[in-house]
């Protein structure tokens, strides 16, 4: 069995035991990358070739040299009988929104294309300390602003390994594609409205958005600071649990990182779901969006295949002894996207202020007569469409005359969404759920360029994932089936604050119970 066919957990066990060297694993990963990844993302890339259209393009910056050094260090430790971490020799890719000392940190934007941070993000530093081999930086939507990874300034953008004419989802599209295509065993992504879970669903891998504050944001280039969560992308639940355990916990560099003790997540596995209460909500079986013509809110049932996958997961769990609680009302779900539109853009516009050409990053190459013109040209040339849209809207809805009408109102909606979950999870409430089961996305992966440009419609792709970000609770997306178009369908579980253990427990039970189902046998196109 090729090393890259192993799980991260198995790999670390074998490397620790000296049965497999980190270097062999790394070589296997680099071979996969050479075979499937194609051109790395580059600024001002010309027209795509047919070959480009058949490749994954997960990476922006491959740091093979660094990875070799790390693998050698792990192997040397094993040979010397020294302690190696729980991720010893596991190849990892990192979304290029995290800073890594000495490696360009671009955020997939022209404005940071030349930026190399003098510090490493806490999550990355902890994963490396746990023995993970950092392969490099993977592509994403510019500053994470999108759900398809197409808005990257570094083209070709990442393509879906199941069907390279499709998007991998986003914004952590490079992360999920690299794991799906066998280039990395684990990837570090971020989730602000679904940016880990949605691409995990599109690419048929496991993606976890932890509780807000469970993983430090230090070194994560901010989008919506009150919503951003670093989280794991993995091939299976155990690997995701292993990865979260290695990077979660308090951080002196991030005061919003929770001081809640980090449990042994692996210990939560294999406990089964007997007696657990798993909820289903009709509010997650539809999407609501404004009619482009009239602006009226339109409700639309989810495609049958998507609903069926979720109901199938419920049946599997019921057979394992879980109690399925139907008709849990989550009445504010429909307002998640509008509220998110406002809150995330206010924070994003403010977070983008620092990119002004004064200190680092891009500065206009043309002449300017004064400071203001330097600002204008730098930002006009350095930012792509998505950051500009977010700045415009963020500035508008936080302006003194509109803030009450939009921003303050959105914050109230956010509390209402939180109260939906509080009611569903309350130990003395009517529903007393351990977890809520929903589809992850309203559709399977869309065609490249199909939705891009319609940022409103694309945003509604996050409707089922964004509530967890508003509420701060953890959510996990698991492969839950294959649609008739041959693409993966994701199912999502959400649980109360810091109940990641529940998600792993339920997720692994579902995974094990469905291991022999037919859809599990389907393989991504680039893996065939």
């Amino acid at each position, binding site marked *: 069995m090729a090393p890259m066919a192993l799980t991260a957990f198995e790999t670390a066990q074998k490397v620790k035991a000296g049965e497999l060297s980190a270097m062999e694993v790394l070589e296997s990963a680099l071979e996969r990358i050479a075979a499937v990844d194609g051109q790395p993302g580059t600024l001002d890339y010309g027209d795509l070739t047919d070959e480009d259209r058949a490749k994954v393009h997960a990476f922006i910056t491959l740091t093979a040299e660094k990875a070799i050094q790390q693998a050698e260090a792990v192997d040397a430790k094993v040979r010397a009988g020294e302690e190696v971490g729980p991720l010893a020799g596991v190849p990892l890719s990192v979304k290029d929104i995290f800073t890594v000392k000495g490696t360009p940190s671009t955020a997939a934007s022209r404005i940071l294309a030349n930026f190399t941070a003098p510090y490493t993000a806490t999550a990355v530093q902890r994963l490396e300390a746990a023995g993970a081999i950092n392969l490099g930086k993977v592509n994403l939507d510019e500053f994470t602003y999108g759900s398809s990874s197409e808005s990257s300034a570094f083209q070709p953008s990442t393509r879906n390994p199941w069907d390279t004419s499709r998007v991998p989802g986003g914004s952590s599209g490079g992360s999920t594609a690299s794991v799906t295509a066998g280039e990395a065993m684990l990837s570090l992504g971020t989730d602000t409205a679904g940016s880990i879970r949605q691409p995990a669903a599109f690419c048929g891998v496991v993606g976890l958005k932890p509780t807000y504050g469970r993983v430090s944001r230090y070194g994560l280039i901010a989008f919506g600071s*009150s919503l951003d969560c670093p989280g794991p992308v993995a091939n299976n639940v155990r690997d995701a649990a292993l990865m979260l355990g290695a990077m979660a916990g308090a951080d002196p560099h991030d005061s919003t990182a929770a001081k809640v003790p980090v449990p042994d997540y692996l210990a939560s596995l294999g406990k089964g779901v007997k007696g657990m209460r798993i909820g289903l909500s009709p509010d997650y079986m539809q999407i609501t969006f404004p009619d482009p013509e009239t602006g009226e809110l339109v409700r639309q049932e989810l495609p049958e295949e998507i609903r069926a996958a979720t109901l199938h997961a419920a049946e599997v769990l019921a057979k394992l002894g879980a109690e399925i609680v139907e008709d849990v009302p989550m009445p504010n779900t429909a307002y998640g996207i509008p509220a998110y539109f406002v809150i995330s853009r206010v924070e994003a516009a403010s977070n983008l202020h620092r990119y*002004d050409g004064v200190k680092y990053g891009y500065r206009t190459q043309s002449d300017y007569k004064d400071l203001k013109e330097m600002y204008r040209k730098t930002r006009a040339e350095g930012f792509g469409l998505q950051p500009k849209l977010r700045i415009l809207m963020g500035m508008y809805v936080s302006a003194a005359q509109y803030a009450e009408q939009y921003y303050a109102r959105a914050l109230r909606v956010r509390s209402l969404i939180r109260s939906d979950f509080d009611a569903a999870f309350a130990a003395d409430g009517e529903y007393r759920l351990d977890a809520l089961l929903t589809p992850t996305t309203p559709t399977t992966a869309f065609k490249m360029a199909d939705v891009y440009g319609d940022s409103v419609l694309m945003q509604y792709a996050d409707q089922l994932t964004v509530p967890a970000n508003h509420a701060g609770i953890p959510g996990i997306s698991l492969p839950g089936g294959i649609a008739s178009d041959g693409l993966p369908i994701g199912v999502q579980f959400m649980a109360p604050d810091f109940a990641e253990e529940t998600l792993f427990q339920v997720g692994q039970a579902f995974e094990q119970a469905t291991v022999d189902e037919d859809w599990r046998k389907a393989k991504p196109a680039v893996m065939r």
Partner: protein
Amino acid sequence: MTDYEVVIGLETHIQLNTTTKIFCSCKADSWEDEPNTNICPVCTGLPGVLPVLNEAVVEKGALLAAAMHSNIRLTSFFDRKNYFYPDLPKGYQISQFDMALGKGGYLDLPMPDGSVRKVNIEKLHLEEDAGKTKYEHGVRYVDFNRCGVPLVEMVTGPDLRSADEAAEYLIRLRQLLRWIGISEANMEKGHLRCDANVSIRPVGSTVLNTKTEIKNVNSIEAVRAAIKKEVERQIEVVESGGKVKAWTLDWDDAKGKLTMMRSKETEADYRYFREPDLLPLELTEDWREGVIASLPELPLARRARFMSEFELPEYDADILTADRPISGYTEAAVKASGGDPKVVSNWIMNEVLRMQNDLGVSADELVLKPEDLAAVIKLVEGGTINNATGKSLLVRVQETGKIPATIVEEEGLAQVSDDSALLAVIDKILAANPDEVASYRSGKEGLFGWFMGQVMRETRGKADPKASRGLLQKALKGEG
């Protein structure tokens, strides 16, 4: 001509004297450091970094709030104040907006004429400082050293009524800041910065007319001068039928001139919103009580007590509460002496303050402790030593660190009041100076002082002046 009343509000920025900056571990004070040598990824706003609040800033800010009778909120929030400027590396300043650490407050300002002006505090919040820019040879330079230096912004109501009151407020604020030990409060070094909002109105009116804002006033005298100048200008404008416009004015101290920086017709929109990178600032009731309890007696309260309890004149009380060490020194010396506080006050104002100034130290740094001073005063009052010896004894205590009684003993400084000993000295002087004796006896009584000086010289100052005077008079008159 109408009589005008002046309406002034002061906006102060107080640099807290913490060791490190407000959100990172860079050194807070960069005075005389090379530009951009005291910076890190956090205070220069690199991508992905986060602020972590320095607790010492909260403590010092809360102490000031308590001293200003401001209500310390148990839950306050940090907010982002968004604007673009090259010296603001994040493009927003982390400040506090609507739910700041302090709510309300006031300072009862005693005026030299004996009246008291109540100055209300409208804003008291924590924030980070921005950097500095300078223009040189057409190039704009940025220095980030000051980014993240902790500040308290404190804004008064429109409660001050003259340039002198504004100056007095700053004098008392500076005294208070040093007294409670939260800021060096040096205006020249920018530890205490002040903008003044000035308007005028006819006496008797209660409307708030359009105000101007004076910036860049770097000393208390500059504040006084700039406000006086601006009031004159506003009166002139109004008297000539014009209207005062909402300008921002720049004070040029060297030229003593105000120049318009910009017209301020519309308020800037800073798009304040809660800083998501910091948790709400939660304090406990116990912690707050602790801060309030740790507050020392404040300068104005102590000044009032020195007047009531010690019955000191206002002049003495003011000087003896100028700073916390001298006030503590006075308090301790009065207690140790057990005598008339005014006598103690005189000794401190004449001798101790001089010694302190000569040595360039504060009262608590003197070797001469308040107990030593009290002992010396007692020795003088008890007649063991004379006044002059007392003064030089203070210097000896300061020099040697020995207690006064020991020095008196070792150096034989006790006053000679024994008649026979004094007479022997007097006889000797008279015998040695027959010409002067003759002159005195022929009517030149002005020579008496010269004879007294000889007695003191002969006894190295130890002669009891009163006893000596009597014996000398008798001897000179030939009655001895």
